[in-house]
């Protein structure tokens, strides 16, 4: 089923190769400019009417953000993950809040946690879960969570960290 769909839509939307994970779960990558047309066609003619989630992955070494739009066809129990790669420095993407109103919330979250902007998305600049955040977006991988927490939050002295492997070895085999 997924293969048929892929074969049908590839010429029109310049899809990448299909990665099949399960019988009803697959992923596909496509250029960012083709996303809107592809999602519209999935929704209107192929029955993928449900946007399950919209999330991002930070590929720091490649200098890219990956957006994943999970689409679900409820009638046929199919899930298709649509991936788009963005440039990490501009970090900008078209908003799809007019296709699915729920997408606006996801886009707000991505704006706050990754710093990816979606121009035109409603309430994009309002704070989502963080309040008064003054630093890098915290889900970016160049944000150093440990250093930030040590600078910001007072610690109680006396906390000891063990290497789990060495610690369990010394506990279980005290003789060596």
């Amino acid at each position, binding site marked *: 089923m997924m293969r048929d769909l892929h074969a049908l839509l590839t010429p029109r939307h310049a899809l990448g190769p299909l990665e099949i994970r399960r019988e009803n779960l697959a992923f596909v990558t496509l250029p960012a400019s083709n996303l809107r047309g592809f999602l519209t066609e999935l929704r209107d003619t192929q029955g993928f009417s449900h946007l399950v989630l919209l999330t991002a992955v930070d590929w720091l070494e490649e200098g890219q953000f990956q957006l994943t739009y999970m689409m679900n066809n409820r009638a046929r129990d199919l899930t298709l993950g649509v991936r788009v790669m963005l440039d990490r420095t501009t970090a900008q993407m078209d908003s799809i809040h007019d296709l699915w109103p729920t997408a606006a919330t996801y886009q707000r979250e991505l704006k706050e946690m990754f710093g990816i902007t979606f121009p035109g998305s409603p309430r994009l600049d309002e704070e989502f*879960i*963080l*309040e*008064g*955040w*003054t*630093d*890098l977006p*915290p889900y970016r991988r*160049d*944000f*150093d*969570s*440990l*250093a*930030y*927490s*040590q*600078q*910001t*939050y*007072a*610690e*109680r002295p*006396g*906390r000891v*960290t063990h290497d789990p492997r060495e610690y369990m070895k010394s506990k279980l085999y005290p003789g060596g």
Partner: protein
Amino acid sequence: MKDIDETFRKIDATVPLREELRPRTVTTPDGQEITIEPLKDYFCEAAPKVHPKAYFQIVENFYNWARSNSLWILGFGTGCGAIEMRPLMTPRFDAYRYGVQWRPTPRQANLLIISGYLSVKTLKRAIRAYEQMQGPKYVIGLGSCTINGGMYWDSYNTIKRLDDYLPVDLYIAGCMPRPEALLHGFIELKKLIRAGKAEGTNRYAENFASYKAAQKSVIKDWDMPDYNW
């Protein structure tokens, strides 16, 4: 252990006050021009006072006995520990027989249980709730997250040491502590109250400035009055 990276540090950045909280001039429906300052108009600015104990020791002891046997918890769960508080109401643990009960409003509660990790955003609410409670009031820190950060020791958004921000009377260690540990904590707190050692309310009033400084150092967008009585 310190792993400080100064490259991204922007601690000095200030967060602008939300628009609806800024002082401004508005026109009333009947045409008057009035200035409103939302953070001052609706709140009393008086700092907390130190309340003395009863004059006679025997009266104070009697009061403390009553307080210890009538712990009213504010039903405010902050982390996973809130799940551990629920079974206490059920037939299996039944904390009501120790005089413990849950109140829905901070005004009527006198025990605040910080049940688990406290994010900065929740800390703001916890401070407000605590300040609205009437003294003598007690704070229990539940779980290792409130003691030294626990498993959230490197998180970007949770505080690591509760007693910097609120006067904690008692910690219950564990991740998570079982409801039995909570019951034991109540009994220990009762002993503290009866011994007259649970004076967190007055400690908070005495060290008000340092508590506020600590709170403001982590809450970057301080959008409430300094004291919410």
